[in-house]
């Protein structure tokens, strides 16, 4: 039985790698073609040093969303494990999360582009960010467009946090709630403290689900951000030439993460053979 589980896990892992590879190919192709077509920049820019600033953006976003996801997970643990169900803070946060979780991501896109961009001028006068003007000269050669004090950057970050946090909180809470009471009771009756129960029993059981939830949240956010970038941000950046690359990269990552999260869920469902129900 253990053997069958292992084989399943193994096969699923291979499938993950293959899909990862497949998802990577179009992104890579587009990036290379885009550079080849850019005749002006062809001499100065090789695929590698165009890719790196692009990935830089992605990394920064991933870091931010990782932070948002961690915050969401901590928040969910606190709500689910430490606050009693009758606590009004918990009920308030849960209802807010439920509302945000239910909004389709297209609305976030509209919110981000509509509301945030209309305040771009205000943000500029406040002095916090600068809104770059579109230039016609050779500044397009510089690939780092997504400057970290532009309006676009802040909007993308805010959208990200707003989209990632509620989904993470919701999935984490559901996952924690799904751990059967007898498992916890058994551990408590053996003298385990609350933290030991969480660390040794609950977290190993729900880890995959939380990870899958995080990936799903991130994939949704990345797709929305890709659309914002692809449609609306031309006029706010110094280098519109690189926008298609960025769009493809973000969209590709979103696709990949979404596939990855469904594989994680599949992995959890099949390989762990219903671990939250102790007696089957």
């Amino acid at each position, binding site marked *: *039985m*253990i053997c069958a589980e292992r084989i399943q896990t193994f096969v699923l892992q291979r499938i993950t790698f293959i899909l990862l590879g497949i998802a990577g190919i179009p992104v890579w192709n587009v990036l290379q073609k885009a550079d080849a077509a850019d005749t002006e920049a062809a001499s100065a820019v090789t695929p590698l040093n165009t890719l790196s600033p692009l990935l830089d953006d992605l990394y920064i976003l991933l870091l931010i969303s990782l932070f948002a996801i961690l915050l969401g997970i901590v928040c969910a643990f606190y709500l689910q494990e430490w606050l*009693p169900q009758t606590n009004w803070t918990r009920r308030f946060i849960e209802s807010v999360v439920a509302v945000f979780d239910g909004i389709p991501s297209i609305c976030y896109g509209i919110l981000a582009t509509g509301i945030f961009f209309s305040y771009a001028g205000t943000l500029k006068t406040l002095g916090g960010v600068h809104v770059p003007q579109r230039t016609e000269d050779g500044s397009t050669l510089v690939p780092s467009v997504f400057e970290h004090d532009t309006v676009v950057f802040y909007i993308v970050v805010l959208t990200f946090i707003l989209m990632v946090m509620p989904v993470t909180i919701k999935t984490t809470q559901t996952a924690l709630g799904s751990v059967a009471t*007898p*498992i916890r*009771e*058994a*551990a*408590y*009756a*053996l*003298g*385990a*403290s609350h933290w*030991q129960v969480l660390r*040794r*029993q609950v977290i190993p*059981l729900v880890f995959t689900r939380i990870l899958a939830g995080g990936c799903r949240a991130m994939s949704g956010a990345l797709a929305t951000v890709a659309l914002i970038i692809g449609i609306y941000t031309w006029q706010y950046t110094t280098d519109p030439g690189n926008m298609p690359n960025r769009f493809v990269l973000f969209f590709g990552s979103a696709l990949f993460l979404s596939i990855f999260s469904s594989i994680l869920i599949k992995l959890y469902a099949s390989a762990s*053979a219903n*671990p*939250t*129900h*102790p*007696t*089957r």
Partner: protein
Amino acid sequence: MPMNYSIEAENLNLWYGDFQALIDVNVKIPHGQITSLIGPSGCGKSTLLRCFNRVNERYGNVTTEGKIEVLGKNIYDTDVSLPELRKAVGMVFQRPNPLPISVYENVLFGLRIHSPMRSITRAEADEIVEEALTSVFLWTDLKDKLKTRATSLQLEQQQKLCIARLLPLKPKIILMDEPCSALDAKGTRAVEELMEVLAGTYTFIIVTHNMAQARRVSKECIFMFLGELIEHRETQVLFTDPKHEKTSDYVHMRYG
């Protein structure tokens, strides 16, 4: 001779919110034998049992008054450490609830949470697992399956494993909340035999709905009714010559 008793409860009252589940319970449970708790559903048997290692406090909304001395120490004193109490007073639940990890790790789980990280060597661990599984008569069946997930065992084996996992902690008292209600006749018999073998070493308190079982395994028997302790006598006497009318009605199955 206070140490002749494993557990002494005095004027124990317990409320779940407004509902009083235990009313002035006074009980002395003798050391090293099996005591059974019987009574109709909702009479507070399980609640009383859960008081003895304070697991019922987790549900919140629970108020307790009175005194319970376990091994001569009041467990409601402020200096009592819950992990230590639960180490000394083990508990087996109604449905077998092995943790969803391997059989081997299940047996060691209790020990691992009570000892510092990596303080148990591989050889020691092997020995402890073998000893615990041998004393619940599982070793011959499971010695080749130590790495299987415990939840994939048969129910009877799971329940025995739940008992085995208490033993490395060397508890003094083992509480059992209807340990056989999820098992078939063969499994019930196996668990009962196991209890009889272990009874000299450990004090057993068993909640049961099965009066035949209470009669078979226990030396003393406690009858509870609507949160009150009605009668506490030797099992044979309680079943043949009950003093109280309610007890007599119950043991003769005039109501259930």
